[in-house]
């Protein structure tokens, strides 16, 4: 699997994402600078986490207007896989590649902790390596992860099976206690209508080996690799 990782001023999970992709896929991804107008050939384009442009204006708003984003949008329209993690998810909603918005956490504070997630469906290229019916555990680290969409959009996302992950308790209950940031429907990640663009607040690249406290981040990349092979 060939991957490209787009780097913006203020990206800070770019290295972690490059390292994780290389370790899992065995192939070094290509870093792409935000001023580029073309993307290299790649099966997967990743928008990594960080505080692009300091989150000034709105998280992801300025990065969404960087020169490279037109090429990312084109790739998405052409059917490439695009993964936006954390700040990358915020960029995807800002570009309109994914619906909704990520608002300030309901508790108004930055939150860094591991959360449990239900994998809403395991038949997508991103989620195919996850076991059905068992919550996974991944870290979150964000200030603006409170997913909002209007009722009609939520209904459409639910109806079209475009929810990727939900915040749940350890035993899988998607209740208010398990919701770290106030997201509607406990939504932690969503897909585009062709299931090829995924935006998610949790960081799969940070939990890819037991030494770091878990490896539930791995199957996301492994599944994609299998799907592409």
């Amino acid at each position: 699997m060939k991957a490209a990782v787009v780097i913006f001023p203020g990206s800070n999970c770019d290295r972690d994402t490059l390292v994780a992709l290389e370790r899992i896929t065995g192939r070094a991804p290509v870093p792409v600078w935000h001023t580029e107008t073309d993307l290299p050939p790649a099966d997967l384009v990743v928008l990594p986490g960080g505080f692009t442009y300091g989150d000034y204006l709105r998280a992801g708003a300025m990065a969404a207007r960087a020169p490279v984003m037109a090429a990312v949008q084109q790739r998405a329209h052409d059917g490439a896989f695009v993964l936006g993690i954390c700040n990358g998810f915020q960029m995807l909603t800002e570009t309109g590649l994914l619906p909704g918005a990520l608002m300030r956490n309901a508790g108004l504070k930055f939150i860094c902790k591991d959360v449990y997630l239900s994998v809403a469906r395991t038949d997508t290229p991103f989620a195919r390596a996850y076991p059905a019916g068992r919550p996974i555990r991944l870290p979150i680290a964000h200030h603006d992860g409170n997913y909002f969409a209007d009722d009609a959009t939520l209904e459409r996302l639910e109806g079209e099976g475009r929810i990727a992950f939900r915040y749940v308790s350890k035993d899988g209950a998607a209740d208010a206690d398990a919701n770290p940031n106030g997201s509607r429907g406990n939504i932690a990640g969503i897909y585009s209508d062709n299931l090829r663009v995924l935006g998610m607040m949790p960081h799969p690249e940070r939990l890819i080996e037991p030494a770091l406290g878990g490896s539930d981040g791995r199957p996301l990349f492994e599944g994609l690799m299998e799907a592409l092979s």
Partner: protein
Amino acid sequence: MTKTSSSATAPAQPQTGAAAPEPPITAAMVKEHGLTEDEYARVLRALNRPPTLTELGIYSVMWSEHCSYKSSRVWLKRLPTAGPHVICGPGENAGIVDIGNGLAAVFKMESHNHPSFIEPYQGAATGVGGIMRDVFTMGARPVANLNALRFGAPEHDKTRHLVDGVVAGIGGYGNCFGVPTVGGEVEFDPAYNGNILVNAMCVGIAPADKIFYAAASGVGNPVVYVGSKTGRDGIHGATMASAEFDDDSHEKRPTVQVGDPFTEKLLLEACLELMAEDAIVAIQDMGAAGLTSSSVEMAGKGGVGIELTLDAVPCREDAMTAYEMLLSESQERMLMVLKPGKEEVARRIFEKWQLDIAVIGTITDTGRMVVRHHGVTVADLPLDSLNDDAPLYERPYEIPSPAAPLDIAKAPAPANAAQTLVAMIASPAVCSRRWIWEQYDHTIMGDTLQRPGGDAGVVRVHGTNTALAVTVDVTPRYCKADPQAGGKQAVAETWRNLSATGARPLAVTDCMNFGNPERPDIMGQFAGCILGMKEACEALDYPVVSGNVSLYNETNGQGILPTPAIGGVGLIEDARLYARMDGMKAGDDLILVGDEHGHLGQSLYLRDVLGVDLETEGGAPPPVDLAAERRNGDFVRGLIATGRLSAVHDVSDGGLYVAVAELCLASRIGAHMSLPEGLPAHAALFGEDQSRYVIALPTALTRQALRAAAKAGVSARHLGHVGGVDLIAEGCDPISVEMLRTAHEGWFPRYMDATH
């Protein structure tokens, strides 16, 4: 006050033209600049004429306590700073030790106390920004942040607001910049009601053969300004940090800088990129006293001269005067001296990162600092006078006599020890700090092995199989009762915390927070703590490689507790073999390493359970036997290296009962613990005897471990075993671990969520 009008005809008087008129200096201006009459007389002698206002400003900041260490230097010199693995000791931006694999750990701790009290978010944020800049100035990528915070009593009016702002500020800066914050400590005490302490530590990693220093060289080399534009923020911050507070201290808000972590992240990447280009002769960040101290230090250390033309300085406000540009503490700026002809490569890199870059001067051989603005020379002074002629005070000091040992009759047993434990676990001193560290990104960079909440933070050295353990500690109440014993204990506790993870302690950085050094009793606290630190550092082969002093932490004559915060860094040779607190399993045995004396003097039990006034009746702090400390630590580290221990935790605040409870909480399992013969139960449970560790290990290994301890001359006993859902101490009621958890997790969020 010295007359200032008589030498107006001195020949070297810089011209003050119409573009930037500089008023004559009056006694009131000298006073406002925080210089004493004697210090101003030194300025006059050095210049042989009255200074311009700009020059007065330069002397004022360079000779401030914050920049010159004029009260503390004579004492700091006593600390041991050398060791086989030390690459760079104190005096540079940060200390550096060799960590193998061709790499070096670069680290320092620094205070941002005064600004954080006035404006907690920005004060704390820029403290983090400043310390990270110190580390990456030397060519290191920051990989771990820590902080040591001290606030007033929880019930004090300002405390909640200050905790909220400081924590948000530390998180806001470090999270955006993208460094994991992996450890720290937080304490509440009424002694900090008027002066909180915000000490930030940063650890970075650099190639050991590619370290960058501040000493400028090469006559004619360009002096280059990079980073953010200069504004009027933070003017005289260093001077503010060198004075006491009074009731109007909130009016000093304009001297607090505003941080921009986004720009600092760009500055980091741009600096590291340029550092790979072999273009930099010297580099220094603009921290306290901004452009002034960075240029003076670079030229002074290099024994050269420097000429600056301020017209080229990128400014964010109109009509800034030379005085303002030189004294601004605008953040996220660096000054560097480039090799000849490297301006273009530097420009290309900084423009790529969308940062300002400007050549603002040249290195000369005059030994003078000459500053021009609008064609007018606004300063022309001998650099020697700023560095070498800086005032140096041997302040009178009286080391307080150590408190007498505690009268045990003043420390009666509690009615119910188990209930007392629950109360202690739920207290502000011992309760979980989760509310704080969940606001800090601690998993970014993908190398955090031990997250916050353990004995020390552990981060893997990227791309290697080694790891660094990092911790900050000090027990100010011990330092108050006996500064020398307290200074010693602070160093020993960091050493112990590192050892409890299996790390070999390498070196420390210190952050010395004290009151007004012009008072002999405060100077005595400082001197005593230094002597204690020196003793411990020497006995443990654990040198001081960097540090910072913050004095005048006083409001209306009330000083803080003496607080020499110590930051320790240790190396774990095999990252798979470090110890944690959360691995206890049912059936494991518990071993206690270290002597038990039941020492209750200055303990949390006295202060928080019995409500004893520690100052008058608290007795002596627990002594540290440094030989035993070393023996016990070496023994525990050796056991950890076998890779067969389930969990390790040191015994500190609150004593053995709290230590075992913390192990149970981390491992989510119960335990039984026995008490030693010959000690009152409450002294054994809550005494704060030093140099102790609790170890959990499979029973099959217990006899072997105890035999090894005996052979090594280490006191150790079978303490108990792991299992069940309750913590049961001999003769005490069982307490469920879940109840302990509720108590432990409850206080902080409840306190912070309360509205009044």
